[in-house]
């Protein structure tokens, strides 16, 4: 190896250590005993690792409720997004109808609008309709996904028109073609979008912070803040165990399916 390669590799490894530091620290503190956390001489790794904090977190706090809410909300959002977007993306890609160009233009325009911009009016409407502090209120605003419509339309447009025509000749309904021809053929894009959607909504704090005040409905990020604000600075071990449990599902999924995750999360930039 050339000296310059050694130096650059060394610097990149140093950077990697810094990137890992909060992860290592979070897991390390979650494995420490109460007395070890509060000693004056702090060490990076636990001297007497124990799973006690995880036991406490799972049995004496609401973290399991938050994790369950996270599953309900993210799956609810993803299923509704796909139910609404797959037929529309199919129609945009393979049907001619009045207003199609307008609709596609609307999708592209909607790509520009971050959720923060729509939050105040949606909050206003939901409070009138009594949808705040409900699962519906947490899920509903996200079923309109310009990003999903755009990605799926681009994927479905790759399907040869002859294939669609053949399905029509066979007597399949248009809705049937959308779900039984376009959907399976566009599956890689569906998966990339699913990873994007689940990650975005599992990690989202903004809307849950606004739309719920009931801790029983808190999603994982919201719940972690409830947990932290309740404890008086004494339950740092269980707090770190909770933070680890909240982060673990997506990080493990990422490590198992790195290529798909990278495509899903950075795909918008990779495909340009």
């Amino acid at each position: 190896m050339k000296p310059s390669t050694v130096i650059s590799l060394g610097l990149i490894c140093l950077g990697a250590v810094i990137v890992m530091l909060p992860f290592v620290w979070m897991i390390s503190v979650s494995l420490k005993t109460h007395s070890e956390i509060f000693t004056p001489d702090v060490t990076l790794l636990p001297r007497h690792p124990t799973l006690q904090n995880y036991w406490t977190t799972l049995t004496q706090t609401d973290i399991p409720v938050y994790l369950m809410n996270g599953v309900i909300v993210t799956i609810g959002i993803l299923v509704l997004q796909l139910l609404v977007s797959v037929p529309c993306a199919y129609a945009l890609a393979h049907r001619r109808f009045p207003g199609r160009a307008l609709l596609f233009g609307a999708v592209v325009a909607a790509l520009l609008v971050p959720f923060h911009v729509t939050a105040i009016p949606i909050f206003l409407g939901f409070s009138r309709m009594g949808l705040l502090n409900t699962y519906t209120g947490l899920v509903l605003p996200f079923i309109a996904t310009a990003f999903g419509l755009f990605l799926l339309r681009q994927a479905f447009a790759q399907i040869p028109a002859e294939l669609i025509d053949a399905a029509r000749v066979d007597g399949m309904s248009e809705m049937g073609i959308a779900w039984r021809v376009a959907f399976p053929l566009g599956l890689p894009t569906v998966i990339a979008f699913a990873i994007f959607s689940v990650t975005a909504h599992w990690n989202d704090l903004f809307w849950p912070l606004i739309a719920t005040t009931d801790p029983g409905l808190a999603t994982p990020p919201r719940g972690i803040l409830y947990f932290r604000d309740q404890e008086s600075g004494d339950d740092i071990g269980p707090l770190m165990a909770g933070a680890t449990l909240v982060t673990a599902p997506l990080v493990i999924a990422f490590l198992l399916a790195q290529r798909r995750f990278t495509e899903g999360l950075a795909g918008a930039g990779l495909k340009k």
Partner: protein
Amino acid sequence: MIGLRRLVTDLALAGPAALAMMLFIFLPVVVVVVLSFTDYQFGARSFDWVALDNYADLLGSRHGRNALINTLIYAAIVIPASVGLGLLVALGLHAIARTMPRVSAVLRAVYFLPVAATLVAMAVAWQMLLHPSLGLINQWLSALGLPGRQWLSDRGIVLYTLAAIGVWQSVGYNMVLFLAGLAAIPRSLYDAAAVDGAETGWDRFWIVTWPMLGPTTLFVMIVTCANAFRVFETVATMTGGGPAFASDTIVYALYREGFVYFKAGYASAITVVFFGALVILTAIQIVVVERRVHYR
């Protein structure tokens, strides 16, 4: 009859998505612009038109300007640092990808980890890492004989601490985009540059890599910029905009004014300013893409 049936089919396919976009994207954008000209408060029965008062408040008051300036400072640190570091890491990993594919893949995964991780949970971990007495950072500083800092409660430092965490979170994302850009550069260009006398890696970088990465770099900068303007999770988790508004940012101000103080009109004006900034950015992006087409 056939026309009607077609219409029904089209409506069944595209109608729900069109309706959802109307209800949850376009209508709210119109409403938020209208609200920004009123003094409406959540829960109030009526409101008055106040023309541009909310905008005057935002741009004229100390708190309003403070949130805007903090966001600009934050972006001014995060954009160059995370784009620059993302590029450096990508160049390093690209160089060793052939000789040490395993090492390169592991490092790539490590750098991307913060992108997939739950930022709020990681912010809680950072808070613990930066804890004045129980945290590792101050402990290590004192081992080196350096004074510890109040990373999150010192008004002079807090914004930089948040910016450092913003860089930590986005380097991996930028690295992945740069790696894709590097992989797309044809090897023949490097050979041609070598024939023309570009002998050192430094020469090759400036003659081939940098110009070829131009479009990627601009794209990465715009994405990073848009994300930096949206900073919210770390502020909400670690500082609440404090101490004394030292880490207040535009989206956090939107949240606080709108949903803690229920000043819907004023918060709508913040939203419109925020949205306007993003639209200008995107307009720049379109111009850039346009240029890229000519460049090809």
